[in-house]
């Protein structure tokens, strides 16, 4: 009989602070991807409303109800942070351990991300609860603005160390400039 110990995705790499920017691990017990079958998007949205109190957000958006989030994650797919039952309506796949997620915050956070992400993440164009799939350096990521100076970055769990490496390099460069 085994006794399995759960470990975080980032090990002891986080938290990390350089200059005025800090990265901390975001832990969500469960994550499920939801990919509605053909013609079932409305039904899926209704199902989520009933079960989680959240409907499917638009492309490029996240919705939250309390701790539960529902976020667009790609072509015809969303991700929710609580178990859902959508039999026959959508492909629901357990991704609870598929991602490493961190939050990056601080006054220079946009400058740090501008070193790595080929998106206009300035607050005028990329607002709170806007989410995008893109690259961070060479890593495929999902990036969401969670506050005026805060973003959440999700990366494939196996790439967690690379994510921290790339962010740390950018954070160090930005901090050394004094102000960006």
């Amino acid at each position, binding site marked *: 009989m085994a006794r399995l110990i759960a470990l975080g995705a980032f090990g002891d790499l986080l938290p990390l602070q350089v200059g005025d920017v800090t990265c901390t691990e975001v832990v969500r017990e469960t994550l499920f991807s939801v990919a509605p079958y053909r013609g079932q998007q409305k039904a899926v949205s209704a199902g989520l409303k009933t079960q989680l109190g959240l409907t499917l957000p638009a492309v490029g958006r996240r919705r939250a109800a309390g701790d539960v989030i529902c976020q667009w994650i790609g072509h015809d797919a969303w991700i929710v942070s609580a178990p859902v039952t959508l039999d026959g309506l959508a492909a629901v796949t357990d991704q609870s351990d598929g991602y490493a997620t961190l939050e990056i915050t601080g006054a220079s956070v946009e400058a740090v991300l501008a070193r790595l992400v080929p998106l206009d993440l300035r607050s005028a164009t990329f607002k709170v609860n806007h989410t995008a799939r893109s690259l961070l350096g060479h890593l495929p990521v999902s990036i969401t603005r969670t506050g005026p100076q805060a973003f959440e970055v999700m990366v494939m769990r*196996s790439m967690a160390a690379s994510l921290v490496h*790339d962010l740390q390099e950018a954070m160090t460069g930005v901090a050394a400039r004094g102000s960006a």
Partner: protein
Amino acid sequence: MRLRNPGQTVTFTFDGKPVQGVPGEPVAAALLANGIRLMGRSFKYHRPRGVMTAGSEEPNALVTVGRGAAQDPNIRATVLEVSDGLEVFSQNAWPSLRHDALAVNDLLSPFLGAGFYYKTFMWPASFWEKLYEPVIRRAAGLGRLSGQASADCYEKAFAFCDLLVIGAGPAGLMAALTAGRAGVDVILADEDSAMGGRLLREVEDVDGRPAAAWVADVLAQLRALPNVRLMPRTTVTGAYDQGTYGALERVAAAGAPVECFWRIVAKRSVLCAGALERPIAFPDNDRPGIMLAGAVRAYVNRWGVAPGRSVTVFGNNDDAHRTARDLAAAGIKIAGLIDARPDVQVTADYPVFTGGSVTATAGRRGLSSITVAHQGGTRVIQTDCLAISGGWNPSVHLTCHMNGRPRWRDDIAAFVPTPDAIPGMAVAGACNGVFETAGCLREGAEVAAAIARDLGFTAEVTLPVAEARAYAIAPLWEIPGKGRKWVDFQNDVTTKDIALSAQENMRSVEHMKRYTTQGMAPDQGKSSNVLALAVLADLTGRGIPETGTTTFRPPFVPVGIAAMGAGGQGKGFAPTRLMTSHHATVAARAPMIEAGLWYRPSYFPLEGEVSWRQSCDREVGYARNAVGVCDVSTLGKIDVQGPDAAALLDFVYTNRMSTLKMGRVRYGLMLREDGFVMDDGTAARLGPDHFVITTTTAAAGQVMRHMEFASQVLRPDLDARVLSVTDHWAQFAVAGPRAQVLLNTVLDDQISNEDWPFMACGTVGIGGVTGRLFRISFSGETAFEIAVPARYGESLFRQLVAQARTLGGGPYGMEALNVLRIEKGLLTHAELHGRTTAFDLGLAGMVSAQKDCIGQAAASRPGLVDPARERLVGLRAVEEGRRLTAGAHLFAKDAKAVTANDQGYVTSACYSPTLDCYLGLAFLKNGPDRHGEVIRMVDHLRGVDTLAEVCHPVFFDPEGGRARG
């Protein structure tokens, strides 16, 4: 000589000698201030050279900065800012800048004209690599790399804006101000350390104030606008598609990355890059002390440095007079002004020669005198600085980056940009051929206002009062007469070279460029291109427009590889993917090897083992005799769900998956549409509409893309969803006769052979955690793969390994895995290398003829099913002690090892501890028909030449009884 009290100074060194400089000024200014005119040697003839310009276009004053790993060659002394302790060295001179041995080339110049090397150095053949080329290479080149990695940091970044203004001279400042006030999101980038462009260099008033004061005022206004971002020290280096621009920033902050390469995305842009002055071709026009007139004014007006004590000015336009005026105002002696235009009326208290030209110069290491031919005769003038102005060339470079061709304007004797050469880019000011301040200010403002309105803003144009006067120029390219007249100073190309090029029918401008090397030096012909093609046009009798230009290409200024490649150094080049067992594996001292982006253990050495083979053989024994544990999480895992999931799998796999029973796994083969094998793996059916398939580690990304392609592009009629779950699951192979025993130590419910037959799959509990169990084997043994959510991966791995050790087993790495699979004739990408078919692999039976699948049609091409193809076989070494090696080629037993006799090649080979002999997998012509034949295997590279017996590729347990156990 300094014209004003410098105040605070810093000390740097030039070739080891201390020099005083003023913070912020370029090294070239400091050297001139200290009377140092000789700053470099030319590329080919090693001619003494001084500074010629005051900007990044400098062809002569290239220096090396720093030493050791920090050594930085080919830095423009006109851009490099002085700082305390800066070490500056001249380059391309030996033993010293003053006494350069290779200056002998200058004496040999009659023999070293354009393209001389194409005509000689051909005999004897071997002398090229041994003698001629090494000598040429040593003489050529400019600065020297240290050969070591620098410790300096570089970075890259992205920026976005509505409007990118390129250049902060009068046009750029007005453009940024006008658009910025309108509320447009503006980036203003300028390559200088201070913004203002020409206004910092010229003596004139704007809005009733000295121009520099007006600039300061505008910059203050711009800084106060939150929608305007100022990027000084930032050169826009290239224009790319859809409004993407490259830009290089020289970061000023100490300790910060030294350079940042920006990718700027702009809805619109305005090019306000100004203009570059051009020289005139007259004999020996390259001596230190001969400078462009605008540069002379910049040193005098901006930096307060006199480039000479007795200055002469030579030009074909009014800037010559402006130069003399500024020099006189600064109290510098003017030894003469030569205006090539005969009809100019000038009164001045210095000698003026209208209709004159400079016909000779003297002074080996610095100008001492010039000879002037004028309407009244010839005169020799003693002078240590000659300011020349052949007119201005608009900086059209960026507008040519998308193959735009500039057009010639006769009235200003210059090329100007073709409108809309870059989509979204407008052009304003001097780079558009407007050579007076008022016009630049107006054009910058008006162009920006129009863009602002286009973008939906309300813009007003408010213009300051400024100098407005016509640009009066009489084209003058080459002064007639004998002597060498430099056109391309950097590459030592003279008018004679261009003439020889034309004489040899290298008359197209591209041929001339490539034959003479004009325009191919670091300055990319910024000062020489127009002059060169004008000279060529004269020689060929074609006009300048007909002659045309060569193409300006990015980057506008040279960009360091470290800047554009920032982040790539070391491990930054590609992501690394780590298995959940990574730390435990490293702790076990397993050497890690790359598998795609992943790191996997090669083997797990035990105390006392001295070679990898010992460890490998032991680990093979675990699986064959006890139990081995291997992390296989790197294999791609793709979840396929939906009403048509089975149909989609039938379409992407050669064999049928729709007939697979729930709770069962099937081996599957995927083809590319061209009929060759793409990948193999397994499909497990978890529910009626739910499968999880595995891919090889190497092909995981490709298969995912392929599945999406099949689903979205080829079969959108099928309702199925495809998702990678590779990272969610940590998955471990447990292989060996005691695999089941081991599993039962960790599983919540005991399993038996009856419940979990070969190729069964299902859900299991491990310490209360829900996992998956697959009874599949890549070793030929009784084997399972057990999967748990990744957060539990490390924990499960440690427990499996610990339990395995108690059962006489342990972890195994890639080496053992490879041996185990070769013994069983199982395939990896050594065999699935993209050129092999199911037929070649003996798997033709897996290609169902009853249904359509990707690759099926093309796989039936005659060339893909020819029995004579190289097809998979096993090889068993037959000579005692002789190994088989992967990469060796195969020949008939008595044939010579030459291409004509080539029968195939070995893809995988190993020593099999199980069978105590060397085994190989190979592709052999007609292979399956040749079992039992002894063939010759030759690996020239490794020095192996041996015999092997052809056999079936499954060497061990061919009946497969062990896996079914």
